[in-house]
């Protein structure tokens, strides 16, 4: 079965969900509380069965988590973002939907300090367990750093 053209999918999603904003380049922004439902819909109704990429960016006032989901054997790929409060950086885990998130979310947690709710094994992955702070945050300070 071949999915609809990407533009059609995006238009359909836009008309179905008023909360959705789509940039010129097709980047979708979803409110955090709608994220799980939206992603579930993508997977179940639009066959986005492959979670390619999970990452996050720090904008000092807030974080953004970024997801790229694709369809295996098909060129479609979507770029989805959600804004996360910096004081309470908690987002729902995508592991129940796509197992491929398991290490990628751990990496984001480790380096950016965003917690993924209901992740089965949220531990640091690249740094020591007793490491303090999250290096990819923009305000991360370290001794001997040569930033700027």
């Amino acid at each position, binding site marked *: 079965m071949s999915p609809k053209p990407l533009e059609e999918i995006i238009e359909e999603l836009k008309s179905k969900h008023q909360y959705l904003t789509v940039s010129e*380049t097709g*980047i979708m922004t979803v409110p955090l509380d709608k994220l799980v439902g939206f992603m579930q819909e993508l997977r179940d109704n639009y066959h986005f*069965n*492959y*979670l*390619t*990429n999970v*990452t996050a*960016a*720090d904008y000092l006032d807030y974080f953004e988590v*970024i997801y*790229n989901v694709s369809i*295996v*054997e*098909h*060129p479609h*790929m979507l*770029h989805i973002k959600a804004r996360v409060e910096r004081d309470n950086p908690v987002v729902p885990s995508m592991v129940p939907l*796509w*197992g*491929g*998130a*398991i*290490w*990628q979310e751990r*990496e984001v947690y480790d*380096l950016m300090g965003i917690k993924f709710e209901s992740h089965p094994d949220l531990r*640091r*992955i*690249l*740094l*020591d367990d007793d490491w303090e702070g999250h*290096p*990819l945050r923009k305000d991360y300070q370290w001794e001997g750093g*040569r*930033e*700027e």
Partner: protein
Amino acid sequence: MTIRTEEFLLNLGPQHPSTHGVFRILLTLDGETVVKAKPIPGYLHRGIEKLAESRTYTQVIPYTDRLDYLAGMLMNWGYVHAVEKLMNIEVPERAEYIRVIVGELARIASHLVATGAYAGDVGGLTGFIYTFRDREDIMDLFEMICGARLTPSYMRIGGVADDIPEGFIEKCYQFLDYFPSAIEEYNGLITGNEIFQARTKNVAILSAEDAIRMSLSGPVLRASGVNYDLRKVRPYSVYDRFEFEVPLGTKGDCFDRYYVRILEMEQSVKIIRQALDQLPEGPIRGKVPKVIKPAAGEAYAEIESSKGIMGVYVVSDGSTKPYRVHFRRPSFVNLGYLDEMLRGWKIADVIAILGSIDIVLGEVDA
């Protein structure tokens, strides 16, 4: 009477030849059987994503070599491809062809390490010597084109660093003429070897559903019969101009994961020959400003690296340095499945299974 043993923990690595770098697996064993596995990466973590934030866009290129240092060309490509997408830069045709040539050479070089090291992992160290003999030819070609063997930093935003030097094309054709006979040799030495087959066939069978669910990519995914290769599915650069096939496995066992790589090398030879035959004249660098300063915005782009989908996410704040760079590394994501993959297998199989994923720790840790 059955003998019960107590479970015990065994540390495999961090410095074990079969971990292909510094990587530790904490195995919980019941006798020789793996009950569970706790993969522990991070020993080679250098914070490349953080470093990139304090370098200019061009200065980031050499860091990408150090991710998958066995296929540095492809890592360069993934990064410049994303920046080009961010800035809407058009790359001249000749540069795209050169990229395909060196990229596919890098794929072969990387698969040669995978093949040889894998033979070594399951007990046949001779294979290692043979594949490294032939990898040398590719390293010589890289040295000709950019002066470096392992860390080329050859790609530039908008093209490549230099044009092809004199004598490169002839040497490249020579290699293409020779290489199929080398593959035959590997098939005789490794693929057809009974012990090798006994160690790899029907070991750690990975279903297509699991492979997709766990976002596995590259030969590991295709060995399970999933036809997902970005060069075909979402052709970037000039891949749509070449005829080649995407080799698939039927079973998804360790043997398939090994053999798909052998078949992919044959296809790469085909691609390089076509690219050399069609190589157009023209500039090797597009219209790119001296100082790279993308408008504020973001982009995510992917290429098919030797180990799977290499994705790069770049955010620009309008300055000369990237605000955020993220590398989606295929080895890293592929390893996320290791625990489940190892459960129930014997300790000797652990090496065969880990080797079949073909990880490189520079890329896992970033």
